[in-house]
């Protein structure tokens, strides 16, 4: 085979491969196709809810299993002025607001939060990126907090509004938020964590309060929680998909 013919054939193969890749990408990224694929997410959530006991605990480890180096991901040092002011004052002025579809809206400072029924657990944090790390988390159980606020019957989800802006270019929609349903909200291991490995939560890991929702991936565990809003539906909030990463294509049900 001559060199020019070989070059030509190679060019043809490359062009063919490129055309195939771009055709695949058009299909792969098509909103209708992706909506269809996400039917699997509803199937997975439904199957998990039917097959697994809703109160099944995620595995708890001994203290010796705690990871020496627990990666901090997402926002690790929020620049938002309101947060910086609170952090500068050692979070003395911090108030966790619980409102929305509740009978008695709450505004809790850290002392009030620490006085609530608490739990301490050594669990594994599984990131959607693939890594995992183990730590001891201590915090107020979410269920008694909700009891105190009194959820209205129409409340179906809890939305966690956070202090940090993870995508500054998106403006107000760049602010981190997450949502969970009541099955996870009332789970015994679901915590408003204020301590990690026996010390107050560091800024990198979400000070002063972050969510622990074991049995779901890391991005559900919202850090820097500012406000918990009980809602019937989250489609009016930010991108409408129930969370910062959900608005960017990730599954709302992060149990897989």
């Amino acid at each position, binding site marked *: 085979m001559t060199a020019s013919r070989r070059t030509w054939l190679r060019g043809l193969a490359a062009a063919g*491969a490129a055309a*195939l*890749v*771009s055709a*695949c*990408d058009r299909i*792969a*990224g098509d909103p209708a196709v*992706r909506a*269809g*694929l*996400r*039917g*699997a*997410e509803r*199937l*997975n959530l439904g199957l*998990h809810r039917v*097959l*697994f*006991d809703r109160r*099944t*605990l*995620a*595995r708890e480890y001994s203290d010796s299993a705690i990871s020496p180096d627990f990666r901090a991901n997402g926002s690790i040092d929020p620049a938002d002025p309101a947060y910086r002011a609170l952090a500068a004052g050692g979070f003395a002025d911090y108030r966790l607001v619980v409102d929305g579809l509740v009978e008695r809206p709450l505004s809790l400072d850290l002392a009030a939060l620490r006085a609530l029924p608490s739990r301490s657990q050594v669990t*594994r944090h*599984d990131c*959607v*990126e*693939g*890594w*995992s790390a183990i730590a001891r988390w201590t915090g107020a159980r979410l269920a008694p907090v909700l009891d105190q606020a009194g959820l209205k019957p129409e409340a179906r989800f809890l939305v966690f509004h956070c202090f940090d802006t993870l995508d500054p270019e998106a403006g107000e929609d760049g602010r981190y938020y997450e949502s969970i349903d009541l099955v996870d909200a009332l789970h015994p291991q679901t915590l408003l964590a204020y301590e990690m490995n026996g010390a107050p939560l560091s800024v990198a890991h979400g000070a002063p309060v972050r969510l622990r929702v*074991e*049995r*779901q*991936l890391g991005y559900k565990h919202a850090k820097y929680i500012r406000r918990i809003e009980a809602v019937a539906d989250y489609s009016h909030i930010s991108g409408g998909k129930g969370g910062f*990463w959900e608005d*960017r*294509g*990730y*599954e709302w049900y*992060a*149990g*897989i």
Partner: protein
Amino acid sequence: MQGYLRIGGREFDTTGVLGWSGPPGAAEKRAFPAWATLPGYRSLATGRNWHLAAAWGLGLGLTAYLIAGLAGGRLRRSLVPTRAMLAPRAVLADLAAHLTLRLPEAGGYNLLQRLAYLSVVVLVLPAMIVSGLAMSPAVHAAAPWTGDIFGGRQSARSAHFLGACLLVLFIGAHLFMLLLHKPLRRLRGMTLGERETRP
């Protein structure tokens, strides 16, 4: 920038394929090249959509295949090696036939074929499903054995990846053998149901 693969103490330059690839001037840090990933652009979210939907196809497909194969006796008849095939002389003959690429035309699957198919169907694919499930925090909470049999979530992740490599190897070898043995006639047999061997 360059891509490399380190196995044990040895390092291999894999620039353009693993670790660093893309068109000239637009190469980027990515594990696998665009032609090998779905989607071609970097999107973990879209990749997960495809992966978690396709997992249903694998799970349901394999279950249906195994039920039908066990119930009809086909798995035992055509995939489990016969006693005669396992006689030392027969094993050596089969190995020699493969090494020289001179395989018999007629008859059912030969010994190496049976072992390869059987291990993929009853070992590798089920292990892919269980190790995949082990990575789900919800499944792991309800069924911790899925992770324990691999020695933890990260080991299950490695097993999942190595299993995928084995499957790629299997499909590659399968297609290679097919090309050596009258591929068009076999394709016709597969699609039209014609007998593979004719007088």
